[in-house]
């Protein structure tokens, strides 16, 4: 959209940053829940534009990173079944389970294919009977409605060799779970595209019950900064509301069409979040009438997973307790080439983002100083 570029103008960003500095009188800890926000903050160098006492903390908003080791092991188990093709979003390829990743499985001969959309996965199923095609369905509310629509479509079309392993998660209850667990933040910068689907109302309990202001923000530099400004204003005025900065992408009621198909196809179950534990009502399981599409039924034994590797602090990173560079493995034993934990794998994992942009900063410094 030609208007998008207006939200990237550096003068506009500088002006908003100036307003943040004027509005801030003390230190505030703000969690950007969403990995896409973390990437935007680093890519556009927004931290450097903020006053030092605005402390941005990354949260558990990367669906790849919060997928439990056991869930990875379950998809790896399915990839080994004879006559099976696993279709997956590319982000999931290198996430290690107990030892291996989907990428390793493929190198060993399993049929694992990267798709851009779940529609491509259905296409593979149509083109390859009798092979069993299993889609590794990962993602938050932005992604889950598309899975629901496709399962409903495959059901009415009678495609019987297409299945999904639903690792989808819904996000608002995990925000309150974090606060219950003792995460110390003053307010939340909330994800624009998740809220395009769910709207602003599911965040009301965070603002009203926990007295933590929430601002739903877009992903252009001016959006992120304006979202922070709105949060700072709420905090300074001791208000705690849900506000929408990203009004061109989010309406208070959300996308009722997408919510309806999600509800038609999925029911809510407890789900395991890496680093956080089991959170009630955050998992999406196919309803009974769509059970034929559930790949769970091919898992005929208990999958036991190894504990997380020693030293890996993805859990603390996901809870916002430490920043990635505080982890002893960061950049040494754990790097994007050889990730130990999922936060270093996903392009939107906070460790990968810190690594990529810290490396860039270091190189720029070296070039400038000739070191």
């Amino acid at each position, binding site marked *: 959209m030609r208007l998008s570029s207006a939200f990237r103008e550096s003068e506009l960003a500088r002006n908003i940053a100036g307003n943040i500095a004027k509005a801030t009188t003390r230190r505030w800890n703000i969690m950007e829940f969403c990995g896409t926000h973390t990437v935007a903050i680093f890519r556009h160098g927004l931290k450097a534009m903020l006053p030092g006492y605005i402390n941005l903390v990354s949260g558990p908003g990367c669906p790849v990173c919060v997928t439990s080791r056991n869930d990875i092991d379950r998809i790896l188990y399915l990839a080994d079944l004879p006559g099976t093709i696993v279709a997956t979003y590319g982000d999931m390829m290198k996430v290690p389970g107990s030892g291996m990743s989907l990428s390793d499985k493929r190198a060993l001969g399993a049929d694992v294919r990267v798709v851009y959309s779940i529609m491509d996965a259905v296409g593979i199923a149509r083109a390859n009977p009798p092979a069993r095609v299993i889609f590794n369905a990962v993602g938050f509310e932005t992604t889950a409605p598309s899975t629901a629509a496709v399962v409903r479509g495959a059901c009415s079309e009678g495609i019987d060799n297409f299945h999904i392993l639903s690792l989808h998660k819904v996000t608002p209850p995990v925000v309150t779970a974090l606060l219950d667990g003792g995460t110390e933040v003053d307010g939340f910068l909330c994800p624009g595209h998740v809220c395009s689907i769910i709207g602003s109302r599911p965040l009301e309990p965070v603002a009203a019950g926990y007295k933590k202001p929430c601002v739903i923000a877009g992903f252009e530099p001016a959006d992120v900064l*304006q979202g922070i400004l709105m949060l700072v204003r709420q905090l300074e005025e001791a208000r705690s509301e849900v506000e929408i900065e990203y009004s061109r992408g989010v309406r208070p009621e959300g996308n009722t069409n997408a919510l309806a198909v999600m509800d038609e196809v999925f029911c809510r179950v407890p789900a395991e979040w890496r680093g956080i534990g089991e959170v009630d009502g955050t998992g999406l399981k196919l309803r009974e009438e769509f059970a034929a599409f559930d790949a769970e039924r091919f898992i005929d034994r208990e999958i036991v997973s190894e504990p997380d590797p020693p030293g890996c602090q993805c859990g603390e990173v996901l809870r916002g307790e430490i920043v990635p560079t505080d982890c002893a493995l960061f950049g040494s034993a754990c790097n994007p080439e050889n990730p130990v934990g999922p936060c270093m794998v*996903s392009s939107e994992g906070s460790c990968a983002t810190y690594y990529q942009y810290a490396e860039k900063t270091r190189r720029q410094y070296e070039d400038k100083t000739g070191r």
Partner: protein
Amino acid sequence: MCLAIPALIKEKDGTRAKADVGGAMREISLEIIDRPAEVGDYVLVHAGFAIHKLEEKEALETLELMRKVFGQ
């Protein structure tokens, strides 16, 4: 993974559409969009699905707000 990008609808046939996504033509689904969208409309696309119809007016209002705040 939760990024959706603006796309311009070029052709439409029921819930299927072809859209210009950052210069590339892609087939997208309009099945779960929030408001009806037609050829010439901008939509937010995530993983092949349009999830939201964009209105230029709303974008302009936000920009105006951002600039107004600056002028205070």
